[in-house]
């Protein structure tokens, strides 16, 4: 179960990186206003860096055998906060793209949130034992 949850997290991180790279490089980006465009571009840029940094730190710590529970805890909290921001506030700012990659990210996101929360709790339990 833990391996499966970790696999979901890796797949989601890969999809997000691919999607944001696509969004930032293409012109198929249709926010409702210029101000909204700046807001969504900035948040997208910050988030891509969070995903890349989080994934790098996680992989580096896992490879070097260091404690992962705090890293996972922080990443889980940040992931949930970004999700709430998107669902409660930014749904009217960000466009809903028809690109299959974006659809995949939207579909996998709830599964990712559950998976990363499970992995964080499991890691906490394993390292606490």
């Amino acid at each position, binding site marked *: 179960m833990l391996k499966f949850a970790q696999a979901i997290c890796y797949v989601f991180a890969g999809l997000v990186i691919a999607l944001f790279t696509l969004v930032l490089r293409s012109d198929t980006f249709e926010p409702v206003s210029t101000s909204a465009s700046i807001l969504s571009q900035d948040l997208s840029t910050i988030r891509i860096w969070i995903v890349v940094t989080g994934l790098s730190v996680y992989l580096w710590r896992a490879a070097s055998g260091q404690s992962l529970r*705090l890293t996972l805890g922080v990443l889980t909290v*940040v992931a949930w906060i970004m999700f709430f921001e998107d669902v409660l*506030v930014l749904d009217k700012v960000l466009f809903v793209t028809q690109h299959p990659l974006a659809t995949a990210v939207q579909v996998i996101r709830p599964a990712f949130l559950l998976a990363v929360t499970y992995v964080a709790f499991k890691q906490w339990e394993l390292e606490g034992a």
Partner: protein
Amino acid sequence: MKNDDSSRKSKPSKEELDALFKDMPLFDLKSVRNTLYKRSIRFRFCWVVLMLLTLSYVMGWFSGALLPMMASSFTNLDADYQLHQLRFLIGLLMIAGGTIAINLDRNIQSVFIGIFWVQLYFCVSGTLRLVRSLPEGSTFSLTTYTVIQSTILVLMVWLIVEERIYQRNLYRL
């Protein structure tokens, strides 16, 4: 009458309840004051300043003094205002989380590290938003925002370092 007496007798006393809950970590409240007195004076200072900043922020928000300095005042975008409200709520939840950790005297370092990273995300995205939305020449809002956010981040780091020192000393003993 007889029934009333029996129900009164079956009710556990405060001492009995305390004894029951004593071994349960969740109910083993040590109070914020007790935990703070165990920590260094620098830890207490950081906590008190953080609380004062929060209080002044809430007062500033409800008095409307903060409104002209917010990004939504410059962009007139609903999303900016709603984002601020959401982050305000998350900030209050984080303070509640920190206070609970101090109250229980458990996982203080972990909780504050988590809060620090979330705060850093808010700080970076908020500063970037102000930089991009402010009209030219009006740097007062940006400076005020950056100074307040940086102060909070520095206090958080200081708090974490102090807690780490305390835990290390406790482990040595």
